[in-house]
């Protein structure tokens, strides 16, 4: 049987046409032969996938991955410029000794804003922006799995960043450094609302990072082109996979820590107060459990970018693909074991420090593997020195230098000397600017032409590079020397005549060179958007799938999904075709049907086999509204306006319901079944089981990491108190909470029966079991709430009390969330929405109940068991 595949239709024009032109013929999915005779439905697909009309509501609802990705990238770049301005002001202040350009307070504010902006509002969001923009293209699919989550993530990030900078308006700029150590940042020494801006605005930005992380993981694991097995995945995707997991594991503890400090400041808890049994060192642990991986969260994607660019400009496949993947995974793993080396001077036991010196130098191994793989690729290739490649070379040089000073400070005796000096400042700017900013500029020059449709000017690009490279070294190299000479970090000025002035002046000159180079970039960007040379489809003769689409790409990326059978699909003849005949038929049929909903493909994790055709959600205003709700909750807490926060919470919950309101399908069940039968694939016009299930599991993973952070805090504070529970507290009475948890555990029986009922399509049983599980779980939750609210102590009595109430409260909130989810499912179950073909929500709700039960067992075991056991 021969398949007739029409000529490549992807060159079709994209200019806007009136609505009626997009009306597609009604195509019959049950007869593939017939279906494939029609042309590819480019127009209908474009219409279906395009963002809504650019009205206000339309813009706020836009959710295409290119749109969200670009918004994230340019917003983050805006914050990069702001952070850079902060840095310039500091450099002006330090240009000469005993300068009075900035007051000490202003200086503190600027270094705090600079560090926080670069770490939270620039590096991570811009990387997630590139990931969201690129991944569906690189992986050969049409969208991200949760486009609305992407929208939510963007608005939350933007609002968080704006709220953070709003501190200038209220003259309450945070000034305790990007690490916000307590007790300086605690309620006693930082009264006022400055620290609350830091905690709450950045806290909300962390939520955004976590949300995007979940989406990125699922996209990489389950939304690739057919045939793209894990071992053919582009290295950028590998890097983002490890990064996104690291984000879940690292940002969650930081978010928990921020909330602990915020409750210390506003609710009288005592987590970090030594006088009431707390400990400030706990903050340092939680912060660096985040902070160390954070370095790699920024660095690993940058290596992914480098691994994409190096082979293209060396005109040969990358050397040591497998070694690089192993190195990426190892880096991610190791980064979670090393945080203590940021605390060398806290007073760690000597014995521990020996181990940490050894372990810290270990991270040099995977980094070294990657560096040598790139160098070898370049050496064995025929390199072209275009701007992206120049930035990669700059990265290699600077990052290796930063790595060397890193090995130096990994040694405890040396670190004790240079700790908190400009040597460390030099070290981490070499690592972060060299390791992250240079690759990001390479990414701009490399990828933006695809989306702009126009190339950058090479001459200006090269000028940008050289000015930045030289300016960077002029700025930061002297800092090594002045650091060894003894100049401490974070001082607003220094005395004249001790030999520090020339170095500082040179650094300031260098900083302005960097600023000038960024200006050149902006000029280049604007010029290229207006009058750059057309980029064409594949200006760099690159190997990965994003270069296969027309420039700029259609809203749905690919009409005919590529079938990948190579690591370098565009370099090998037939690299994007092939596959079995049935897969070819499938992708070609998918280019014609369905056109009435946004169909994307789920593929298997390992081999990239097509599993499901599912409906990706449409644009909606609700994610924006929920972002507004969330920012109201967090923002109002700065001024402790609880009733405003309550309004925000209502908006948030209502918008979540609107966001997840089920949709009816525009295609009939018969049509879907016909397509499914014809191609041996599941067709789900309401959403994918794989995607929904994985989304729920990752969400629960985040909750689990949050719980682990809270329990770690519990035990850490336990360490500081020889008597537990502290004097004045009785051992907790365990009977009542045990009954509460028991009821929840019993509710798992009807909840799992409800899953069985829906698979059997037994509607009455489904409704009954859902109701039973709700009643039992509600009673259990009620008891836990009762126990929580009838304590004979308050959070401010002692850190023990704070921990107890916080952790039990966490359980209660999770349980309430479960009840809400059950109610939601129940509501639609009673309307007969679910069937044996549509059961994901029921399953997910049951899964949530089970995991919360496990959390409950752990929480009660710790809270009610540990006082008896230690």
């Amino acid at each position: 049987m021969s398949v007739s595949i029409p000529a490549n239709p992807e060159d079709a024009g994209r200019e806007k046409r009136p609505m009626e032109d997009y009306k597609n013929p009604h195509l019959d999915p049950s007869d593939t032969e017939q279906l494939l005779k029609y042309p590819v439905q480019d127009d209908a697909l474009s219409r279906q996938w395009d963002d809504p009309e650019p009205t206000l509501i339309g813009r706020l609802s836009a959710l295409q991955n290119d749109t969200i990705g670009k918004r994230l990238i340019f917003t983050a770049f805006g914050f990069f410029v702001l952070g850079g301005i902060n840095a310039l002001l500091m450099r002006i202040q330090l240009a000469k000794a005993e300068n009075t350009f900035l007051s000490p307070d202003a200086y503190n504010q600027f270094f705090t804003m600079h560090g926080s902006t670069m770490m939270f509002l620039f590096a991570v969001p811009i990387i997630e922006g590139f990931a969201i923009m690129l991944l569906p293209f690189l992986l050969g699919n049409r969208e991200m799995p949760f486009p609305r989550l992407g929208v939510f993530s963007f608005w939350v990030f933007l609002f968080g960043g704006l709220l953070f900078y709003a501190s200038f308006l209220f003259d309450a700029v945070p000034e305790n450094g990007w690490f916000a150590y307590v007790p300086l940042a605690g309620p006693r020494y930082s009264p006022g609302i400055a620290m609350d801006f830091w905690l709450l605005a950045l806290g909300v930005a962390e939520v955004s990072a976590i949300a995007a992380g979940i989406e990125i993981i699922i996209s990489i694991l389950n939304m690739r082109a057919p045939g793209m097995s894990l071992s053919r995945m582009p290295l950028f995707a590998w890097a983002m996979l490890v990064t996104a997991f690291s984000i879940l594991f690292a940002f969650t503890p930081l978010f928990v820590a921020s909330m602990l400090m915020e409750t210390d400041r506003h609710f009288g808890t005592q987590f970090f107060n030594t006088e009431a049994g707390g400990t400030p060192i706990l903050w340092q642990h939680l912060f660096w459990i985040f902070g160390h991986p954070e370095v790699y969260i920024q660095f690993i994607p940058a290596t992914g970018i480098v691994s994409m660019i190096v082979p293209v400009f060396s005109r040969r496949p990358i050397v040591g693909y497998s070694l690089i993947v192993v190195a990426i995974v190892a880096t991610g793993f190791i980064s979670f074991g090393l945080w203590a080396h940021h605390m060398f001077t806290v007073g760690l036991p000597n014995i521990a420090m020996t181990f940490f010196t050894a372990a810290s130098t270990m991270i040099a191994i995977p980094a070294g593997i990657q560096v040598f793989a790139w160098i070898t690729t370049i050496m064995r290739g025929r390199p072209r020195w275009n701007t992206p490649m120049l930035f990669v070379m700059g990265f290699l040089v600077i990052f290796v230098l930063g790595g060397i000073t890193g090995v130096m400070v990994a040694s405890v005796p040396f670190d004790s000397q240079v700790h908190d000096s400009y040597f460390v400042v030099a070290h981490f700017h070499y690592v972060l600017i060299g390791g992250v900013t240079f690759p990001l500029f390479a990414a701009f020059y490399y990828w933006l032409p695809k989306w702009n449709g126009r190339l950058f000017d090479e001459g200006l690009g090269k000028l940008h590079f050289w000015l930045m490279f030289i300016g960077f070294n002029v700025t930061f190299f002297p800092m090594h020397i002045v650091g060894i000479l003894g100049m401490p970090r974070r001082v607003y000025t220094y005395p004249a005549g001790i030999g520090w002035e020339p170095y500082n002046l040179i650094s300031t000159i260098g900083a302005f060179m960097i600023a000038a180079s960024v200006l050149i970039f902006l000029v280049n960007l604007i010029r290229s958007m207006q009058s750059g040379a057309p980029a064409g489809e594949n200006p760099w003769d690159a190997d990965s799938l994003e270069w296969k689409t027309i420039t700029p790409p259609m809203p749905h990326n690919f009409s005919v999904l590529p079938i990948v059978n190579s690591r370098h699909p565009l370099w090998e003849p037939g690299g994007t075709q092939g596959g079995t005949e049935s897969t070819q038929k499938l992708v070609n049929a998918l280019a014609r049907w369905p056109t009435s909903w946004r169909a994307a493909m789920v593929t298997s994790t390992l081999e990239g086999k097509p599993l499901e055709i599912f409906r990706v959600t449409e644009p909606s205003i609700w994610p924006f509204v929920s972002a507004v709700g969330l920012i109201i909750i967090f923002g109002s807490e700065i001024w402790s306006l609880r009733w405003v926060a309550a309004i925000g919470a209502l908006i948030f919950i209502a918008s979540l319901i609107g966001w997840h309101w089920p949709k009816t399908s525009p295609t009939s069940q018969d049509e879907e079944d016909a397509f499914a039968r014809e191609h041996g694939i599941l067709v789900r016009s309401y959403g994918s089981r794989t995607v929904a299930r994985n989304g729920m599991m990752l969400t629960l993973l985040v909750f689990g990491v949050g719980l682990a952070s809270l329990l770690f805090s519990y035990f850490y504070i336990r360490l500081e108190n020889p008597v537990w529970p502290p004097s004045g507290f009785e051992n907790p009475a365990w009977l009542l909470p045990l009954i509460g948890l028991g009821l929840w555990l019993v509710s798992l029986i009807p909840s799992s029966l409800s899953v069985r009922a829906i698979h059997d399509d037994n509607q009455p049983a489904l409704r009954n079991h859902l109701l039973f599980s709700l009643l039992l779980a509600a009673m259990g939750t009620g008891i836990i709430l009762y126990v929580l609210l009838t304590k004979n102590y308050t959070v401010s009595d002692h850190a023990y009390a704070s921990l107890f109430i916080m952790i039990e409260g966490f359980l209660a909130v999770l349980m309430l969330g479960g009840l809400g989810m059950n109610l939601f499912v129940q509501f639609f179950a009673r309307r007969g929405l679910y069937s044996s073909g549509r059961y994901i929500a029921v399953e997910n709700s049951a899964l949530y109940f089970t995991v919360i039960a496990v959390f409950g067992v752990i929480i009660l075991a710790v809270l009610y068991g540990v006082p008896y056991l230690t």
Partner: protein
Amino acid sequence: MSFFSRILLFLYTLFLLLARNVNSVSAHGGGHGSSSWEQWSWLDVPLLLLLGGVYVLGIRSLWKRAGIGAGISRGRAAAFGIATLLLFIALVSPLGALSDQLFSAHMVQHLLLMLAAAPLFVIGRFELALAWALPSRWTTRIWKEWKGKNAWEYLMRPMTACLLHAAAIWVWHMPRLYEASLHNEWIHFLEHTSFFLTALLFWQVFAGLTENIHNGRSATFGVAIMAVFGIAMVSGLLGVLIAFSPYVWYPSHIHDTAIFGLTALEDQQLAGTIMWVPAGVVYLSAAVGVMGRWLFAMEAVEAQRIKG
């Protein structure tokens, strides 16, 4: 296996349990105040002999039936040999006695059980040897009883294995329970058994997840990496707590550490750090090993494709 040998096995097991009880009275008679470097505790030797004996029996009947190296390769058999040797070092050699005195030695002992002996047992396919050592009637019956049972499925889930193993690690370090184990040989035995068995379960599940790695047929190796990362974090955090504690958790260790030139607190810090860093390196190696093996298998497949 004949009726007679079965009776023998039963009597031997009975003897083991009794011997334990008798010995435990004398085990803690001396020791305090002097270094225990020369103390060998023969208490667990019969147990090791039983394990080794069962393995040899099983492997003999397996190899007799299917040829030498069948089912359990020689390398795997050697791995089991090393595992018993490590158990011998951990439990019988002076390290065992030392671990009554030094927390850090105790930590090394536990890590030998959980991170060396247990995975080597899994590599040696102890369960297969056991199945062949037992009368085939028993084996088939157990297999029938367990196969497809929900309880068994749940037990072998990565989540369950991780939770049980993590719980064993954390619960036994609660000072009351740990102290109890130092003073009662039965509780001590229970502690070691639960460490070892949950570790065995964990590594068995890990092995199951990475089983098809060489032909690249399943993506469960990713779950295996997550599992090993999770356990590394969970036990590492306990190590952090132990290392950072400002006071001594287990007073029973206080008296003896001075002989080794350590304060009790330093001993504890050493123990915590061992649990944190070296143990973390073992978990890391497992993860990297799995990742590497899978990738290089894939590399071979890809090379084949390009050639073909």
